[in-house]
């Protein structure tokens, strides 16, 4: 029963990936009209227009264009940037490592931090610590990411001069030097993502605390700390893993703003630059990478919550 549910969920995930690819293709290539006309602009003569259409494959029907685009995606041939003429693989190859490095460190810091704080808040609901954590995280969720970023810049980089305000990596730095250069974007992302995760962890544990077996333990006279650590936390692991995967998915949106504000040479900055110069092949490729990562992380979140439900493990 459990494996059936997981296979079914993976099937839905694959369909969603396909739908995402169709939508990205339709939105960028079919709906806006003739890409050759847009690219050539005013100087287009019928001959150059026809030549460029043929070169870009626009003379074929849209479903053939889609098929060849998908074929190229799978073989790693992502096309040529409309702006610079460089191949998109080379542009992305330079940047993707930077984004993975930064988000990896953010995940390593924010996951333990938010599980710990969420747990502490749930242990003493309504007390001072819980009130500080809940109101603080509510405030952070309600403000834009760049709000957090500019206050950190002002405080840590401008006033105190502790860390650099612009995150430029030349590629020759060692690990710790890179972390130092990236301190501000990492801190911003950790704060933004943890705020969500802390609230959801707290809610997950408090939700378990309302179940009958916890009531039983309370009536037996088990101390509250023991109840949370021995009973509630174990049963909340499923929801917490789900929360973690969901929030890594939020990171996908978070990096877009944060890489731009700190001028960090990552994939998201590349995509935003591509949107500004309307470099459609580049936006398509980056969009596919981000959206697929997002769909896969949501898929992992769903599978984690199926796996963590013991009732599904032993079918009646």
């Amino acid at each position, binding site marked *: 029963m459990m494996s059936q549910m997981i296979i079914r969920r993976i099937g839905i995930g694959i369909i*969603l990936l396909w*739908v*995402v690819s169709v*939508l*990205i293709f339709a*939105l*960028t290539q079919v*709906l*806006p009209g003739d890409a050759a006309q847009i690219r050539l602009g005013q100087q287009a003569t019928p001959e150059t227009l026809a030549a460029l259409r043929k070169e870009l494959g626009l003379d074929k029907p849209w479903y053939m264009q889609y098929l060849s685009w998908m074929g190229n995606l799978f073989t790693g041939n992502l096309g040529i940037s409309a702006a610079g003429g460089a191949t998109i693989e080379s542009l992305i190859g330079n940047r993707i490592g930077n984004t993975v490095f930064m988000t990896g460190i953010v995940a390593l810091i924010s996951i333990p931090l938010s599980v710990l704080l969420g747990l502490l808040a749930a242990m003493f609901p309504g007390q001072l610590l819980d009130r500080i954590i809940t109101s603080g995280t*509510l*405030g952070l*969720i*309600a*403000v*834009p*990411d*760049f*709000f957090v970023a*500019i*206050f950190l*810049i*002002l405080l840590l980089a*401008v006033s105190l001069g502790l860390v650099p*305000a612009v995150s430029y990596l030349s590629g020759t730095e060692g690990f710790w030097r890179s972390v130092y250069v990236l301190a501000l974007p990492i801190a911003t992302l950790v704060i933004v993502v943890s705020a969500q995760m802390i609230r959801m962890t707290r809610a997950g544990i408090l939700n378990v605390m309302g179940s009958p077996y916890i009531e039983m333990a309370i009536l037996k006279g088990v101390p509250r700390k023991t109840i949370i650590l021995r009973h509630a936390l174990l049963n909340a692991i499923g929801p917490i893993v789900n929360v973690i995967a969901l929030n890594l*998915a*939020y990171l*996908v*949106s978070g990096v*877009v*703003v944060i890489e*731009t*504000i700190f001028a960090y040479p990552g994939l998201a900055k590349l*995509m*935003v630059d*591509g*949107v*500004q110069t*309307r*470099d*459609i092949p580049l*936006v398509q490729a980056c*969009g596919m990478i*981000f*959206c697929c990562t*997002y*769909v896969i992380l*949501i898929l992992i979140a769903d599978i984690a919550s199926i796996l963590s439900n013991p009732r599904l493990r032993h079918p009646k």
Partner: protein
Amino acid sequence: MSDTSATADQGPNPDVYDELPDAPPKSRLRLSTTGKVSVAIVAFWVLMAFIGPWIAPYGESHFIEDDALGNPIDDPSFMLPDMGLHVYFGTDYIGRDVFSRIIWGARTTIGISFIATLLAYFVGITLGIAAAVAGKWVDAVLSRLVDAILAFPNIMLGLIIIAAFGSSIPLLIFLAGLVYAASVFRIARALGQDIMVQDYVEAARARGEGLWWVISREVLPNAAMPLATDFGLRLVFVILFISSLSFLGLGVQPPISDWGSMVRENLQGLGNGFFGGALASITPALAIASLTIAINLIVDDISAQAGGSLAKKMT
């Protein structure tokens, strides 16, 4: 004396009355102190959105060129605040009054977000209730379409559509409306499905009421309160979405002032210290934060009054 007669006139003791299972919902809304302050903040910004252009000291693209004595200024960019000139927060990176641009920006930021949220609500509720009432293939088709939209991170959908069509204010409204209509659809559909299986709907159906009667008299009134509270939260998301796009330089285009774009334009001023330029970037960011936090606190207050039951329905 007068007190006892007054309570006697009111009939049953109101406290007992409230506990009856079919007690009518409390119509009066009592806000906490933070709630009242938040209402005041939101009211202030809405007022600015309406009358801002008439009370702002300068136009939104007016360059400050002369000082208080009428002598030309060498470098008007990132000027210090000057009360005599009514330049309360200093000037921005090309010498426009930050205070005036924030007041002008209230109209752009709040206006676009509000219209987009209305659009999202109109589309989302219409289709959501239609899916809940019609069921079968209508529901299946609409739900899959919404799943497809929700498979994108919001900001990615924004980037892709703006890359393809270029940014303009109508496109931003359409974009935010589309993205958030998907989540409104989910809530409206869930509420609609809940209500459609209630006894009172069955009773109405049994006595021969038409479909439209059931929708307008039973479904919509019962879904109205949770949806109204959710409107506040959704508006916050839309404000953050539009501001983020503007901050990326992909939203509202210059010279129109908008809080998100103002933060971006003046980022370089952060390095010049607090009064030397940082204010030009901090104050619009604070404007966004004050508005979104205030709306959140009001929604919190209202849903706390409803016993938290609304909050559960709104995930």
